[in-house]
């Protein structure tokens, strides 16, 4: 059979092969042009709003009505940033938000890693049923739990302990960080079910021998986890930490529910247009009752600047971790 195959190869005329190669090359070239056109086009769609905001941020007031200006402003200025930062009370706001988000992210990562490891490596009565319930927590819409959770944290009382000792009907935890911290520490925060799933899939794929070796060397269960398993779980950790950080940073649902009055960026951004409308005339020196209205385009400019200030930390974070992020998703066994 092999001999007849080579026979046929010899019979093919030389020009024909050459033609074939040329045609292949042109179609490859055409395809790669098409691919670049697509990739660049989609990238443009994604980046365009961002570029627009950056351009607006550095644009001077007198450039607003100049129709000849496309992206690059004629008069550069940092006034917009100053004004937007003033309207938002930016730096304290940012510090506060970062502190809060970092705490919940770390707690979420720890509790979800523990749960994921527990589900991946141990069999106890009902372990499979419980894992199905983890998936269930992903599927139930958050709005279903909203009212009971709100009332629960309004008079928080863990199994009646507070009532037992003080005789009061629980403590009001609304407008404190505690509701989010408690849900994060108990692996029940934002999309925690998904994180547990990611960790479980990863730990399931790790070789058992590593653990056994650690056990024989005399390490206990938690020590094995902390010293051996977790340091090897860098990829799912990065994925979970980044997702958790970003989703918590952007979250308005739980923040508005539990901490509507707390200084958090996500809440501030949502009310930014109204605030800018109200505050800008004042900041420009008109009295609050003077009935002066700021130029709506100028307000829009400040709002855009404020939005850019709000998402800037995320973009900077992403610039640093995006390589690990994409790689880690590929290896974290999200697919499993």
């Amino acid at each position, binding site marked *: 059979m092999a001999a007849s195959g080579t026979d046929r190869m010899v019979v093919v005329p030389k020009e024909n092969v050459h033609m074939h190669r040329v045609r292949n090359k042109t179609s490859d070239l055409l395809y790669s042009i098409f*691919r670049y056109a*697509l*990739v660049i086009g*989609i*990238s443009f*769609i*994604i*980046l365009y709003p*961002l570029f*627009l905001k950056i351009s607006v941020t550095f644009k001077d007031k007198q450039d607003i*009505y100049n129709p000849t200006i496309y992206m690059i402003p004629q008069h550069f200025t940092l006034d917009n940033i100053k004004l937007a930062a003033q309207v938002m009370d930016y730096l304290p706001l940012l510090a506060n938000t970062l502190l809060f988000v970092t705490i919940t992210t770390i707690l979420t990562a720890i509790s979800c890693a*523990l*749960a994921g490891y*527990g589900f991946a490596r*141990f069999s*106890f009565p009902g372990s499979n049923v*419980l894992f199905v*319930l983890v998936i269930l*927590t992903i599927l139930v*819409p*958050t*709005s*279903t*739990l*909203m*009212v*009971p*959770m709100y009332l*629960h944290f309004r*008079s928080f009382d863990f199994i009646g302990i507070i009532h037992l000792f003080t005789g009061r009907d629980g403590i009001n935890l609304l407008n404190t960080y505690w509701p989010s911290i408690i849900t994060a*520490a108990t*692996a*029940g925060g934002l999309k*925690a079910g998904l994180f*547990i799933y990611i960790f479980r899939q990863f730990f399931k794929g790790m070789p058992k021998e590593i653990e056994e070796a650690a056990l024989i060397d005399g390490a206990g*269960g*938690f020590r094995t986890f902390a010293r051996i398993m977790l340091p090897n779980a860098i990829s799912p950790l990065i994925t979970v930490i980044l997702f958790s950080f970003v989703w918590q940073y*952007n979250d*308005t649902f739980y923040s508005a529910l539990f901490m509507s009055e707390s200084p958090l960026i*996500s809440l501030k*951004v*949502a009310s*930014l*247009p*109204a605030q800018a409308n109200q505050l800008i005339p004042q900041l420009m020196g008109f009295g609050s009752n003077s009935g002066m209205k700021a130029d*709506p*385009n100028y*307000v*829009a400019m400040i*709002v855009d600047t404020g*939005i850019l200030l*709000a*998402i800037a930390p*995320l*973009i900077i974070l*992403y610039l640093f971790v*995006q390589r690990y992020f*994409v790689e880690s998703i590929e290896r974290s066994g*999200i*697919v499993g």
Partner: protein
Amino acid sequence: MRTIRLSLKSRRALLGLAFISPWLIGFIFLFVTPLLQSIRFSLSNLSVAPGGYVLDFVGLKNFKDAILVDATFNRILLDSVGAMLLNVPMILFFSLFTATLLNQKFKGRTMARAIFFLPVILASSAVAAAESAGLINMMGDASAIDSSVDGGASFNVVSIVRMLSDVGLPMAYVDYIVEAIMRIYEIVSSSGVQILIFLAALQSVPGSMYEVAKIEGATAYESFWKITFPMVSPLILTNVIYTIIDSFAGSPVTEAIYQTAFKTQNFGLSSAMSWLYTIVIGLVLVVVGWVLSRRVHYN
């Protein structure tokens, strides 16, 4: 000295329980309890009292009110389920397509990936809300529209419609495609996680399969439908479910439920609404899951 000697197996079981105990505590007190309470609330009239609340059992009245009495709820519910059913195929198609694209080797691939996942980071309902409010400001002034032409999609939609219908596509398809084009940013920005999932799936397809197909003379088109598609098909189900759940987050229904609870203080009605929503979503998930799982190829 340990007084109770446990077998290795039950010691392992206890250790496992210890690992999941934070989750388990949270699950019981912050998931199951609220879930059961929510059912009770939906069947009652709830009034907030100092330090707690008072329940009045009213049966199915809240559910009746949500469907028949409330002026907008049933329309919003149907609308957002409809929008979801339209969105899911678009997002799915786009994310599979993009993942295949990003999985190929070309110069600048790392950068392209970084850009394509940017929307995952930047997708924020707060920013979207502020943006649309800013846009209304911009559009409030006629002279502003002139200067902000570059802000909108300024290509001619009519010409696309005419071109596609000249080709002979049925109008329903044309509408669908045009709508997809008009909302391309929305689709791109809500398919980041789905692209990641598909990309991870594509990476796990062994390269030797493509080599064999190439030797056998399969075209790229054929090897996509005969290898890539069957290999990622289990993830299509995952992605469909993820997309459906993800569409809860900023949906008008959630907003309506929130308003009912905290603006009009009608907690019972709000719970009933959220249960109707949960049931509808559950039904959609079951139907979609059932249909898809019959067609999915597992290896």
